[in-house]
């Protein structure tokens, strides 16, 4: 999809993902997908590369300003980098939801490692302390499932947006 409509869909999905994970998944300790990352990764499958990068950046910035503990721009950088890697490797994810899920899980793992590394470099070790296991294991695993489930409906949403534009 090459239109601004695609970008708006992506940002709308990112806001929805942020709200759902802030309210629904805080109730379940062991189910912790990072839905915003899933939206960014799935966006790279459906959007023009430049728009996917911009969507990743804005989605990261949105989470940055919402979280309030880590330095502004840390997630924007992380999500942009993940969108870039996703664009470069999207041919690996074929149309099967399972393949998309595994691919998204691996990218999530990379994003968490990148986030922790850059965060520590920028003096955020106190803010990132704790829950490292949860970040590195639970979140990527949960994202495998989330991406597998969401891949088809999100792709259809983008296709619908493209048809209308």
């Amino acid at each position, binding site marked *: 999809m090459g239109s601004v409509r695609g970008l708006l869909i992506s940002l709308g999905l990112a806001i929805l993902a942020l*709200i759902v994970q802030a309210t629904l998944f805080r109730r379940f300790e062991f189910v912790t997908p990072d839905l915003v990352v899933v939206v960014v990764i799935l966006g790279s499958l459906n959007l023009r590369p430049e728009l996917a990068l911009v969507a990743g950046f804005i989605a990261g910035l949105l989470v940055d300003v*919402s979280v*309030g503990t880590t*330095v502004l*721009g840390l997630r924007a950088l992380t999500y942009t980098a993940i969108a870039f890697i996703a664009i470069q490797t999207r041919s690996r994810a074929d149309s099967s939801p399972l393949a998309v899920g595994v691919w998204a899980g691996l990218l999530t793992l990379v994003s968490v490692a990148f986030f922790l590394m850059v965060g520590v470099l920028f003096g955020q070790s106190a803010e990132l302390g*704790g829950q490292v296991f*949860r970040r590195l294991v639970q979140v990527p695993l949960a994202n495998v499932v989330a991406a597998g489930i969401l891949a088809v409906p999100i792709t259809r949403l983008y296709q619908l947006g493209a048809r209308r534009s």
Partner: protein
Amino acid sequence: MMLDRETRRDRTLPTFISLVIFAFVLMTFDVRAAETDLAARVRSGALTLIAPLQRVSAFVIDPIADLLDSLSGLATLRAENAALRSEVARLQAELAGVEDDQARLLVLEQIYDLQLEDAATARTPANVLGRPDPTESSFVVDKGTDQGVAVGHPVVDQHGYVVGRVTEVSGGFATVVPISQDREGVTVLVGGQNGILSSQLGSDLLLLEVFDAVEPLRAGDLVVTSAVSIDFPAGLAVGEIVEDAGLEGTALSAQVSLFADINTLRVVLIITWPPEPGIGDPVTTTTTTTTVPGATTSTTGGEWGAFAASLSRWAWPFWR
């Protein structure tokens, strides 16, 4: 077609590099301009926009999640009820003894004409609305400057255990950062010794450092906020020492686990500290620390305040 693809590929890398540079500039600016309030204003503005959506979402989701919780816990409720009944009976017997001690204390205070300082602190109950990042411990609550909440105010859970501090605040919402994620340490008192409690990378436990230690600490020793702390009122329960810690010269360090379970918080109390008359109109006023594990809570303003105050009065003797 080929040319078109090449052109697009050419635009991807420059876009990526531009965004990365912009992100680094943003991060550098945020780190360097930490003392100014520009970044705080941006975050506060975002909080004002997003928090109402979270409130609506929580309004829809919480009852469903509560129902699922109740259903999953149905099998264990009977056994839990029996255990709670016996616990109530034991506590009632203990309470009778404590009331007797209190009466004697009152008489002794009158005999010796003791005047204890009464530093009243206002406590504002707030609902936890959401946690924007599932792996972050910071969370948003539904009270803000309109209710007298300000940046830096301490936050405790329904049992009176220290949770953290308010870091961002807008009209009706505030962001709370737990002490397990706070870059600033907390001055605490343990075994009669003052120390600094700070978070550690990669661990849910906090690190306690005592620089003028005179005696070792033992597992289970209680950690409370110190009277020399400028961020928290004295005497709030924080956590306990995880394992024995010996002296290393005149210093010692120990691991501390928090009492407050940050991940399952639904309601918190925001303390107006230091006490400042005229800031907002908090719901309730109390002078004590509440520590009633397992106590039920509701979230309606005045009733909640009265309930919390009565809990405080009831539980204070046990806590001491």
